[in-house]
C-alpha cells in the first residue's frame, strides 16, 4: 500500500481541518440566526418563523439562498477594490478566531502558547473590515455608522482583554488548554470569587459591545441610520457581514465559557464522588455547547430588552467606568494571587 509523503499528508490534513471548520462555522451561523429569531419572538409574545420546514428550521437556509441570488449593486462612485475587500477581511478575522477555540477534550485545532493573546489580536482585525465597508460605500450614513462602530470596538477591546487578563493572572499562562486544565478543581467563576465575578460582568458587557449587538448597536441602528455601515451592500457580501457578526458572537461566548466557566469541563462539586461521576458521563462537547448556549442566550436577552445607548454615553461608559473598574480589579486579583486567597 503506498503512503503519502509527509508534505502531502500535512497538506491533506490541513485541507480536511479547514473544510470542517468552515462547514462548522456555516452551520453554527445558520442555527444561531434561527435561534435569535425564535428568542426574539418569545420575548415579543409571538411565534417566530414556523412556515419553512417543521417549526421553521429551514428559514435561515431559505434566507441565505435568497441572499445568494440577489443582484450585486455597487454605486458608481464607490471605491470598487475596498468595497469588495471589506467583507472578506471581516469574515477572515472571524474564521481565524474559530480555529483557536477548545471544543472538547482533544478537539482543539490550534493550541498555541499565546492563545488568549492570539484571539484578541485576531478579533481586532475585524474593525478594519467595518471601517473600510462604511467608507468605501460613498454614503454619508454608512460613514457615520462605520466611524461610530470603529470607535466603539477599539474602546471595548481594552475591557475585554483586561477582564480575561484577570483570570490569566490566577492561572499563570496564556495558553487556552492550560487555562482549562487549571479549572479541574472548579470553575474560575466560583474559585476566583469577587474579582472573577466583576471580570465576568465586565466581560459580558464588553462582549456585547464588541459584536455591535444589544444596547450597543448604534452602528446599525435601524431607526436612525437605516442600516449603518452595511447599508450599501447587497447579496452575498451582505451575507458575509451577517455571517461575521454571528460568528464573533459565538467566539465571544466561547471565550467567556472557556475562561470563566471551565470550557469543556463538567460541573464538579468538591468531593461528592457519586455526583461527579454522573456529571462525567455527559460528554465534554455537550458541556461546552451548553455553556456557550447559556451565554448566547443572556446576550440575546440584552438586545431585546434594553433601549440603545447614544455614542457618547457608550464611550463614557467604557473610559470612565469600565476601564477604571477593570484596572482596580486587576490590582485586586494580583494581590489575591500573591497571598493565595483563592480556592
Amino acid at each position: 500500500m503506498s503512503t503519502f509523503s509527509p508534505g502531502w499528508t500535512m497538506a491533506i490534513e490541513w485541507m480536511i481541518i479547514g473544510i470542517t471548520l468552515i462547514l462548522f462555522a456555516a452551520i453554527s451561523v445558520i442555527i444561531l440566526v434561527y435561534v435569535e429569531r425564535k428568542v426574539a419572538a418569545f420575548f415579543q409574545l409571538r411565534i417566530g418563523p414556523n412556515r419553512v420546514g417543521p417549526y421553521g428550521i429551514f428559514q435561515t437556509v431559505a434566507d441565505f439562498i435568497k441572499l445568494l441570488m440577489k443582484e450585486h449593486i455597487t454605486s458608481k462612485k464607490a471605491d470598487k477594490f475596498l468595497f469588495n475587500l471589506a467583507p472578506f477581511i471581516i469574515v477572515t478575522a472571524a474564521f481565524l478566531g474559530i480555529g483557536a477555540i477548545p471544543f472538547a477534550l482533544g478537539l482543539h485545532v490550534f493550541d498555541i502558547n499565546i492563545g488568549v493573546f492570539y484571539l484578541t489580536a485576531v478579533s481586532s482585525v475585524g474593525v478594519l473590515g467595518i471601517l473600510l465597508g462604511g467608507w468605501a460605500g460613498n454614503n454619508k450614513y454608512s460613514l457615520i455608522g462605520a466611524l461610530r462602530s470603529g470607535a466603539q470596538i477599539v474602546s471595548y477591546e481594552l475591557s475585554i482583554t483586561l477582564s480575561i487578563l484577570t483570570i490569566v493572572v490566577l492561572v499563570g499562562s496564556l495558553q487556552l488548554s492550560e487555562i482549562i486544565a487549571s479549572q479541574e478543581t472548579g470553575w474560575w467563576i466560583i474559585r476566583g470569587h469577587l474579582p472573577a465575578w466583576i471580570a465576568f460582568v465586565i466581560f459580558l458587557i464588553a462582549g456585547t459591545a464588541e459584536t455591535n449587538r444589544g444596547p450597543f448597536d448604534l452602528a446599525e441602528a435601524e431607526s436612525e441610520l437605516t442600516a449603518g455601515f452595511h447599508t450599501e451592500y447587497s447579496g452575498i457580501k451582505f451575507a458575509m457581514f451577517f455571517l461575521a457578526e454571528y460568528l464573533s458572537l459565538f467566539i465571544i461566548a466561547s471565550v467567556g465559557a472557556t475562561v470563566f466557566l471551565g470550557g469543556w469541563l463538567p460541573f464538579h462539586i468538591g468531593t461528592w464522588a457519586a455526583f461527579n461521576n454522573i456529571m462525567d458521563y455527559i460528554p465534554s462537547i455537550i458541556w461546552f455547547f451548553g455553556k456557550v448556549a447559556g451565554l448566547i442566550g443572556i446576550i440575546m436577552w440584552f438586545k431585546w430588552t434594553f433601549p440603545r445607548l447614544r455614542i457618547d454615553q457608550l464611550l463614557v461608559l467604557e473610559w470612565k467606568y469600565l476601564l477604571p473598574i477593570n484596572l482596580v480589579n486587576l490590582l485586586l486579583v494580583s494581590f489575591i494571587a500573591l497571598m493565595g486567597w483563592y480556592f
Partner: protein
Amino acid sequence: MEAVKENKDLKTQEYFVNMGPQHPSTHGVLRLMLGLDGEIITKVEPHIGYIHRSIEKMCEFDNYRQIVHLTDRMDYLSSHMNNEAVCLLIEDALEIEVSDRVKVIRTIFSELARLSSHQLWWAATGMDLGALTAFLYGFRDREMINDIFEETCGARLTMNYNIPGGVMFDLHPNFVQRVKDFIAHFKTKLPEYDELLTDNVIFRMRTEGIGVISKEDAISYGLSGPTARASGVECDLRKSHPYSAYDRVEFKEIILEDGDAFSRYKARLLEMWESMSIIEQLIDNIPEGDIEAPTKALIKLPKGEFYQRVETARGDFGVYVVSEGGKSPFRLKFRSPSFSNLFVLDHIAKGSKIADLVAMMATFDLVVPDIDR
C-alpha cells in the same frame, strides 16, 4: 453657528443630511434637512407637504354632514375627537341640545381613543430608542381597544361614529362589560410599561435633559397638549373650556415643570392613568336617552363665524368656520396641534446629536397627516 469651524489646526465643515421622507423614525412622510457638524446638529429644517390633500378646499364644496367624515383622516389616531369637534360646532351654531346619553358616550369614546393613541405613541417611542420589544407590547394592549371600537362602530381606526346631533348607532350590549374588562387588564399592564422603559437607566440617560422647552417658548410657539403641559403651560381644554361630559368628572390636569423629553414622556403616561379614571367614573351610569337629536337632513349654518376647540391626544384641535348661510362653509380652517408642535424642533435641537433628535421627535408624538392636512 458658522459653516466652517476652525479648531486650532482642524477645520471641520458643515454637511447636510436628509432624514426622510421615508425613514423609520419620522412617523410618517416628513423630511428633515439636518445641517451637521460631525455628529452635532447645527440646523433642522422640516419640509412638509408630502401628504397635503387640500382638505380645507374640499370642505368648501361639501355639505356639513360630509365634512364630519373628512376630519378623521387628519389625525387618524384621535379620529373620534376630530369628528366630535365638527359635530359640536354644528350643534352650538344651530343650538341643538344633545341628550346626556350622547354626551357620556362621546366622552367615553374620546378617552378610549386617547388611551389607544398614547399606547401607540409608547410603542413607537420604545422602538425609536431601540427597545424593540416595547413596540409589540404597546400594540398588544391596543388591540383590545380596537376590538371594542369595532363591535360598536364597525371600524377600528377611523370610526365615523359622531354625527351632528348625536352618534350613529347605539352601544353594543357587550360594550360596558368589555370596557370594564379592558380597564382591569390594562391597570396591570401600565406598571409593566414603567418597569420596561421608565425605570430603565439607559432610557433615562437618553431622555433626561434632552430637548428642554421653556415655558415662554412653549407659549410663544403655540404648543399644546402633553408637549406643552410638560413645560408647565396649563392648556388642557378639558378643564378650561369643558365640553361633552367633562364637567361632571373629576380628573387631574398633568402639569410638569422640567420641559425635557422625559417630562413629556411622563406626562403622557400619567395622562393614561387619568383617562382610565375618567372612563371608570362614567362607565357604570350611562344615562338612558335618545342617541340622536332631531336635525334637518340638509344642515345650513346661520351667517357668522364659529370656533370650536377640542383636546385631542396631540393637543388643541380647532375648527374655524366662516359661514354665509349656505350648505357648505364659506371658509373652514383646521387648526392642527402637530403643525405648531413641529416647528419648535429647530429651536431646541441646535447643538444636540442625531440620537437626541430621534428622542425628541419620539416624545413630540407627531402625526404627519395632521401637519399637512
